[in-house]
């Protein structure tokens, strides 16, 4: 009759993940509460204008999200990520957040932290999320202006970041590195260290998806710039560094999805469609129409049938490739052929790792 108090999150998560994979349980959910954002990042993969969104569908209501929460809870979702767009743009965000927080999820929130009003601060003090990921786009107002179009957003984001840190919950600084802010990389690392936050970055940026438009092609790092960043971060590009990537790839050889998408995780995008991940346009299912369980079964089955492009499956340099199927579909709008951008980056990485072969 034991009650085990788990402080070791990683061990518990691993145990649950393994059981969920075995049983096909949707342990990890993401609710994309809105396609709208108060910032105008040039590289954003999913932001829509009101007109663009209206041409696609209508955003779900508060009651829709709470109904989906109830269904997700019954189906076994424990880890629930709330994201956008900027979720706090929704006037009914407090009702959605509080309602979901009473259903027995461990809620993580992704936000740009620029809209944390006193009322929302009071809400988060009363009911803190289990973790927060804050998108920080630069280490100065000038960089924020270049990336987001809003110089003043920097100060607001810093205030929001400090607020969430004051809650004594895990805070992660998440940043998207492009040509517009790569010069701030070290300052962003230093900011995270100084403030006691985790730091993660994404530098291989996805093309826009699901009807969104972006300038990603003009602002994302070229392969040689990605290589320079990786060399800067890792201090070296030794074969040992890359060996781990190759081993990870071997471990999931033959599987279309090397991540949890469609196995133990799903997303529900702003218009109510369940998808394997945020980058996928198709397949999707409509849980509010067919029921959550039927939607999850459909996504699991569809994800299981998706295959990588034939050239990717035959590629001898796949161990050096960072493209996932979502990124390839985002790039090409189909999975018939590889993503030229990701191939160029993989080739660049391969060449850097095999200087002797190149010389020979």
């Amino acid at each position, binding site marked *: *009759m034991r009650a085990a*108090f788990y402080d070791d999150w990683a061990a518990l998560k691993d145990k649950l993940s393994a059981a969920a994979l075995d049983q096909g349980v949707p342990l990890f959910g993401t609710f994309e509460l809105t396609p709208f954002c108060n910032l105008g990042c040039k590289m954003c993969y999913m932001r829509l204008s009101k007109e663009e969104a209206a041409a696609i569908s209508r955003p779900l209501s508060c009651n829709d999200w709470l109904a989906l929460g109830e269904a997700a809870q019954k189906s076994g979702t424990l880890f629930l990520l709330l994201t956008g767009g900027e979720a706090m743009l929704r006037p009914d965000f407090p009702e959605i957040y509080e309602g979901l927080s009473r259903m027995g999820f461990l809620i993580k929130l992704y936000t740009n932290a620029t809209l944390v009003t006193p009322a929302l601060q009071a809400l988060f003090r009363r009911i803190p999320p289990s973790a927060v990921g804050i998108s920080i786009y630069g280490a100065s107002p000038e960089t924020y202006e270049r990336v987001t179009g809003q110089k003043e957003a920097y100060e607001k984001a810093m205030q929001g970041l400090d607020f969430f840190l004051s809650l004594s919950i895990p805070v992660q600084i998440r940043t998207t590195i492009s040509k517009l802010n790569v010069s701030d990389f070290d300052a962003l690392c230093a900011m995270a260290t100084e403030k006691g936050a985790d730091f993660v970055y994404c530098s291989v940026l996805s093309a826009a998806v699901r009807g969104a438009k972006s300038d990603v092609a003009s602002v994302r790092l070229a392969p040689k710039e990605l290589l320079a960043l990786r060399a800067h971060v890792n201090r070296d590009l030794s074969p040992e560094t890359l060996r781990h990537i190759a081993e990870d790839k071997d471990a999931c050889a033959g599987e279309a999805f090397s991540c949890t998408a469609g196995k133990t995780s799903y997303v529900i995008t702003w218009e109510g469609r369940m998808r394997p991940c945020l980058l996928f346009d198709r397949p999707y299912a409509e849980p509010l129409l067919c029921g959550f369980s039927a939607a999850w079964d459909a996504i699991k089955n569809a994800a299981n049938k998706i295959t990588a492009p034939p050239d990717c499956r035959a590629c001898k340099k796949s161990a050096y490739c960072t493209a996932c199927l979502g990124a390839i579909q985002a790039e090409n709008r189909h999975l018939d052929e590889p993503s030229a951008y990701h191939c160029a980056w993989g080739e660049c990485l391969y060449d850097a790792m095999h200087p002797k072969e190149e010389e020979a």
Partner: protein
Amino acid sequence: MKIKDNYILREIAGSYMVIPCGEELQNFSGMITLNETGAFLWKLLTTQQTQESLVAALLEEYDVEQSLAEQDVAAFLNAMREGGLLVDA
């Protein structure tokens, strides 16, 4: 005694987990997992119980000797108290 409000017992992928909700998330310091009999006692404790009523329920539900049932109930209640999860009437 009973379990404090704002805790939910969930069965996820074959494991019984106690999840804090709402305002109790302020005090969240770790996850609790229960085995089947722990979950049985937890469900009883969502309404007022005594140590004796829990032992009696356990004896009725499971083929177990009284002395062992008493030890197990005491150990369970101790763990719940240490976790700050019990409210005494």
